[in-house]
């Protein structure tokens, strides 16, 4: 497949924050690509750099005290190094973001209808009435009951789940080709989480979008993504099809992540496995594999030399480990 057909091509992307403690490499050299109409999962613990990565890809990192290098080619537009003015042209129309916490990502003193149709009026030059019409359509599309009345509600008058639907409606207003969903369900009740994820799935099919789903919850990505990227300390440590990552993972960290999430099949009162230790301090990264201090399989080599991504059996399945787990290909899936 030629790179022209890819919606997104990311190469050696590095995002470094200037902090009082020195430069902090939140994203430390990430490369991947994304097809049209694909759903990609980015998984990792808090602080693994997944949120910073998703923002850097669309150029939405903070405007000060950050340096970005490498390349992120989004629908033919080079995001890295682009001016704010240039990026405004792709924001909303090529790429849009569903933010993490609907309690903080909506303007509390602006009616939700105005927040949805703002970009329609300002960017697409729609008249007040046709923008309002479209906003009500969008509210209906994301499953908000009585959208006519909700149009003039303030965010504080809606529940968390409804607010997240509004956030999605805002993201959809410009008909983006790529939707970034950064932990879209973290702030919500469990029952609402599934509703929001199903809504995203449905909208993706209906509107022919690509979706990048960023989460710490493997349960969220299991049935909804075609491929998964596992991140640790700002780098990709394993990447492959959802099936590969779940059933034929080679990186011990991936297995640890899988074991630490609850499973329906386990008997009740089964203790969840926790990963010993803590994610590393990005200000003081050691030379070797970042996961080595917490890894049961770590050797001296792991502590001295960082493993690069290497191909596993299946095409597109990559992992970064000196002592990978044995492949389960051919064996019966658990």
């Amino acid at each position, binding site marked *: 497949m030629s790179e022209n057909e890819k919606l997104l091509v990311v190469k050696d992307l590095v995002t470094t924050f200037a902090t009082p403690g020195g430069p902090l490499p939140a994203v430390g050299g990430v490369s991947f690509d994304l097809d049209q109409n694909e759903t990609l999962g980015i998984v990792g613990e808090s602080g693994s750099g997944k949120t910073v990565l998703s923002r850097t890809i669309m150029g939405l990192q903070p405007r000060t005290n950050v340096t970005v290098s490498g390349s992120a080619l989004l629908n033919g537009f080079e995001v890295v190094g682009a001016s704010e003015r240039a990026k405004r042209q792709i924001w909303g129309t090529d790429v849009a973001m569903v933010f993490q916490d609907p309690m903080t990502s909506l303007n*509390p*003193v602006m009616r939700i209808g105005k927040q949805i149709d703002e970009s329609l009026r300002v960017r697409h030059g729609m008249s007040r009435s046709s923008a309002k019409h479209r906003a009500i359509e969008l509210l209906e599309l994301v499953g908000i009951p009585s959208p006519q009345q909700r149009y003039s509600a303030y965010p504080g008058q809606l529940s968390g789940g409804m607010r997240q639907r509004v956030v999605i409606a805002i993201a959809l207003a410009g008909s983006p080709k790529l939707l970034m969903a950064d932990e879209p369900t973290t702030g919500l009740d469990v029952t609402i989480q599934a509703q929001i994820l199903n809504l995203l799935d449905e909208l993706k099919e209906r509107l022919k979008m690509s979706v990048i789903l960023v989460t710490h919850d493997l349960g969220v990505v299991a049935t909804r993504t075609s491929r998964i990227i596992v991140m640790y300390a700002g780098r990709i440590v394993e990447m492959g099809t959802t099936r590969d990552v779940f059933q034929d993972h080679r990186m011990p960290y991936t297995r640890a992540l899988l074991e630490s999430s609850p499973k329906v099949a386990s008997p009740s009162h089964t203790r969840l496995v926790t990963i010993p230790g803590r994610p590393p301090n990005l200000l003081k990264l050691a030379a070797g594999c970042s996961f080595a201090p917490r890894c049961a399989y770590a050797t001296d080599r792991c502590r001295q030399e960082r493993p690069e991504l290497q191909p596993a059996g299946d095409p597109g399945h990559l992992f970064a480990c000196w002592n990978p787990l044995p492949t389960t290909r051919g064996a019966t899936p658990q």
Partner: protein
Amino acid sequence: MLRYVIRRLVMLLGIVFVISVGSFYLIHLLPGDPAVVILGTGATPQNKLILYKQLGLNRPIYEQYFTWIGNVLHGNMGTSFISQTSVASTIRAALPIDVELIVLSQILAFAAAIPLAMRSSRRPDGPLDRILGATSFTLLSVPSFIIIVLLVLFISIKLGIPHTGPSSYVTLSSDWIANLESLALPAFTLAIGSFVVYYRVLRSDLIATLQEEFITMARSKGISQRRIMWRHAFRPSSVALLGSAGVNIGGLLAGGFVVQYLLAIPGLGFTLINAINMSDYLLVQGIVLVVSVGVVLINFIFDFIINIVDPRISRE
């Protein structure tokens, strides 16, 4: 919202009642006997009694209050014993000057504070922010009577701009340009004090608001920085600004007498000081009542505006 407004209105009436009782009682706190003031020290007890009856001073104090407040509500605040003019007409002549001074000073203060706070909050600790921070802090510590004296020295005396010096007040109805000239220096002086407060309050609130996630969200819509500032950041950052404006404007009404007195501008503050000096108690009482009710009303209006600006407040 309606319930909130009604609740505040009831509170407002309560406060105004307390103020009116206080102003009424003010006159009773004064030492001396009104009969002695009017009739002189040689008055006989019989004459005194007749006068008490004429003035209604023999009746219980609450009855006296209700008679008085009834008159006040009809616009009758009595006639000054000193100048023999009606207190209400004296106040009616002076109050518009205060209003004009306040309006002018607030236009100047807001016109400077809002754009400058928006600029400097975009780069906290940047060059502009540091310069404005130091300047506003310096201005904050210079009292208004120093500023007005320096302004008179340079603008009225050195540059010789007409109508700007002391005792050169021209009424609005006679010549509006000369009127503006005569109010320029006091309005500017009052504006400095307001500007410093507004600039500092709005700057710090804007800096906090710009950190919010909904600003990043607004950015991700691809709208201009200008629009993000005015439409998304300004409104949620203006609650403290409006609150301090309410207090500040009330303060100017009650305490703007320094510049008025120094330049002999016949507003309420100037009139009040003269009334105090001449022991014109009825006039003092009238001005205290009008100013206090004015301060309460201004704060009520600003509370109301804050509620419209930030609907979260009345909902909670």
